[in-house]
């Protein structure tokens, strides 16, 4: 499983995303740049230039037509995937920490940071898919300020207008975006900041990672914790394998403590855990800084990890990976 090293960023990675077909991989970084790559060979398709600060987050729609990215320059930008042109820019008082497309590509949800007297906000924008895309409504369709702990991550669920959020306190909650009401919450989902959240293919369950050194699987409907994966290091990202019953976890010592730990001890490895048995089954080494983000190919043939070290590593699984049956002939539903 020789990885492809993508050396297109000068600073640490913040988020990775495959498009629906999995032929393209998008990456954003603290060096203000968003990159698009061919996932099969690691060739760079192009860059999306324009942001003036750390690009914290991105998402791509299911048709690979539009890309949205949120940045510390307080803007949310809509890009044309194929031309690299910035189609529209929304300005906010604070940085954008998380964006996500809805299933039907019609809406985008974004979280802006709570800073300098401005409350953290969740906004939902209607995306006008007609024409060249440069004609977008400037006002959000819905907007609300979640009270209590700051929201750090969010995503649409399979129910329209219902989003799931992860918070700084470790809370996981469901919000109705039309009213801004908290429909349901699990205050004790994690003991520390929720750092990443990725939904399953049918969005009925999702995985969260947290600084409390655990990753957890939650039921979207009830927010019940289904599984817990306890590691020995703070986690920055967690991803689900779409076909095999594994989850991928990444993290490492805090960036500030990295200098005092040796490479082997930094825990800068991608860990594979069995989703149902809650057992670790393997690790993939490579990064020499904490892993900030992990994305799995929608076809399950590869995965990519982006680290604090500024590199993206794309791993195409060997044939043996799909053939191996470490637990015998157990049929496990996705």
């Amino acid at each position, binding site marked *: 499983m020789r990885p492809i090293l993508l050396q297109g960023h000068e600073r640490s990675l913040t988020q990775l995303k495959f498009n629906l077909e999995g032929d393209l991989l998008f990456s954003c970084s603290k060096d203000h740049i968003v990159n698009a790559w061919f996932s099969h060979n690691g060739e760079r398709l192009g860059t999306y230039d324009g942001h003036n600060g750390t690009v914290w987050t991105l998402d791509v729609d299911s048709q690979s037509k539009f890309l949205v990215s949120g940045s510390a320059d307080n803007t949310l930008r809509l890009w044309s995937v194929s031309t690299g042109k910035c189609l529209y820019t929304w300005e906010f008082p604070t940085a954008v920490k998380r964006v996500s497309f809805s299933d039907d590509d019609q809406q985008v949800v974004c979280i802006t940071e709570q800073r300098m007297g401005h409350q953290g906000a969740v906004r939902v924008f209607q995306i006008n898919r007609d024409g060249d895309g440069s004609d977008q409504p400037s006002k959000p369709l819905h907007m609300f300020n979640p009270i209590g702990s700051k929201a750090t991550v969010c995503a649409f669920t*399979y*129910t*329209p207008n219902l989003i799931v959020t992860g918070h700084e306190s470790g809370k996981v909650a469901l919000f109705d975006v039309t009213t801004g009401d908290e429909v349901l919450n699990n205050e004790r989902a994690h003991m520390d900041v929720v750092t990443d959240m990725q939904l399953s293919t*049918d969005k*009925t*369950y999702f995985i969260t990672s947290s600084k409390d*050194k655990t990753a957890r699987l939650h*039921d979207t*409907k009830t927010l019940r914790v*289904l599984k817990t994966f306890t590691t*020995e290091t703070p986690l920055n990202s967690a991803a689900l394998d779409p076909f095999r019953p594994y989850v991928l976890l990444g993290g490492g010592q805090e960036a500030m403590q990295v200098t*005092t*730990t*040796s490479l*082997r*001890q930094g825990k800068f490895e991608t860990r594979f855990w069995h989703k*149902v*048995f809650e057992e670790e089954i393997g690790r993939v080494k490579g990064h020499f800084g904490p892993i900030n983000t992990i994305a799995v190919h929608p076809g399950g043939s590869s995965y990519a990890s982006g680290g604090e070290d500024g590199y993206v590593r794309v791993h195409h699984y060997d044939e043996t990976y799909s053939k191996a049956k470490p*637990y*015998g002939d*157990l*049929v*496990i*539903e*996705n």
Partner: protein
Amino acid sequence: MAELHHAPRYTEDLDFSDILTKYQIQHDDGFDNIVVVDGVPVIDNSKLDKLLSKITKEFSKKGIYIKQDEIHVPWDKCVGKSKGFIFINLRNAEDTSLSLTAMHGHAFDARHQFKINRFVDVERYVQLNETYLDPPMEDYHTKEHLRSWLADPLGRDQYVTYRGEDVEIRWHGKSSQSGVSYSKKAWTELYVSWSPQGTYLATIYRQGVRLWGGPSWEHQQRFAHPLVKLIDFSPCEQYLVTWSHDPINVPANLPQGPEFFSPEDEGNHIAVWDVKTGHLLRTFPSASLVFDDSLKKQMQWPALKWSADDKFVARITPGQHISVYELPTMGLHGKKSLKIESVVDFEWCPHGDKDKDEGRFQGSKGRKLEENMLAYWTPEVANQPARVTLLTFPGRTILRQKNLFNVTECKLFWQNHGDFLCVKVDRHTKTKKSTFCNLEIFRVREKDFPVEVVELKDTVNDFAWEPRGERFAIITSADSNLGSSNAGTVKTDISFYQLDPVKNDFKLLRVLPSRTSNTIRWSPRGRHIVLATVGSSTKSELEFWDMDFFSEERREGQAAKEDWAGGIQHLGSADHYGVTDVEWDPSGRFLATSASAWRHTLENGYAIWDFRGQEIEKHLVDRFKQLIWRPRPHSLLTQEQKREVRRKLREYGRSFDEEDAAEESSISAELVGHRKRLVDEWNTWRARCRQEVAEEQHSRIRLALCREESKEEIEEWIDEVIDQTEEVVD
């Protein structure tokens, strides 16, 4: 108005009697101040005034002031004389109790002695029921067996772990048999400690020390020493020494009794307790405070050193004397200390199996079993060479003395059975520029205590005798970094030595050069040894060695002497990042390494290895602090019985092998079943999810359809005539 009238009547109707009886004030019957003084001379009227003035004077001497008219003298009218007792009305109840303590038994004159009683007591004793009643028999509570863990049918060992606030007692056996035996939150506030034979677990709180034991970990004993920091058991765990940084302070309301400090203990730091009764035996000031400040080193702990049989405990006053106290009275033995000019350090000789089994001492005829032995050393002072001395106690006869020159520092290492004493002598060259090391080894079991010398060029960082063996291992280093405290890793060499029984000297077996190890850990049963790099941030290697790889028989003493170093075999290496503590289990089969949060916060947790260096279990636990194996007491088997067991090992082993095989198959079946259950659970949940999602989508589509249907399309055709022109067509 009507209501107001009604109210008082209502209260009158109430029956308060129950409340009245409950809150009734116990009226002082006023006799508390009165004492009855018996044993007063019988006098006639003429001497009354004289007597009364004498009595008031006697009382006032003790601080009790009474007026003469407060004394009532009962008079026998028939005889015209007093009845020989008087009543005194004192000022208050405090005077009453004072008079009881001060004047009771007071000799008034040669023939009369005061007997003082409270007036109310007299009343009570008169009314006392005269018929004898059997005291109720207290139910007999069977105490739990304090050594029950030794009877574990699986023969497992226990260890205690302390993490965060939780203390856990865990079993260690085969992986299926390991697990938590007992756990308790906030069981200790500082740390936990086993007694030396594993009977008790000591936990430390602000208020003092508590001991626990038995299968259900019942509370066994408590020692109230506020802010206690360090504790130390005597070798036979009969006594406990505690130390607190804060001097003992006896508040006025402290309960009195043999278990508590009394005012004369005030200001002391060290306390000695009896474990069984919980009584305080004696307190001492901290040694470092008495000693002059110029030489203020780190306090030595244990501050009190116990002889191996718990009969004596000794305390050193550096430079002056060693004070030996006898147990259980804690009196200074022979009423005087061992005056030794400029003494620096001493150690008691441990007792070995030979002492115990044979009941008497062989070899050197100078020492009987009843005699303990201690070794001490004195540095070079004014024309006198440095000196190491072996001394019997309580005989106080000097057995052997050895003079040493150019000595900077000595350290005494007894072999754990008291067969050898190694004195590690750090020496300096004449110019005092460089230091080197000598090992002076006293063969204590032989006649006249011969001394062998091993000369080394480097400094010795660590020294360790093989338990019950004739071998030792040392770590030497020529590295100049040594000494600097932050040096994480220092290049070291490890050497093994063994006594050559023919030449009677210690021979170098093998050197392992260029290591980083700084810790030697012999297995408690000898033979196996672990070299570890502890407390370093970059290196954390563990090396497992076997000293008798080929010759099983060597320890029986019939070894082939030709291949000395042939049996030394490297078994394995391992790595435990950030290891801070390394400890063998009492059976010498397993090794526990731990990374304690007391030292650093990286990857705290512990691992257990077998003697070959194979990892058995590893747990990374946040805020992990401590792991200690539960010690085992000495074996009750004699040497012959042990030999017998060893001979029949194969026979015994067969049944265990069968058990193992049976268990293994049951475990794997269990695991497969467990996994199957998990998978089934997951799959049913997924099926339910899928159904729910499908239903929801269905309903959403239906809703959308309905909405479309409800939108009636009304097409209106409006014809509007804009203009009408008529043209005549031809």
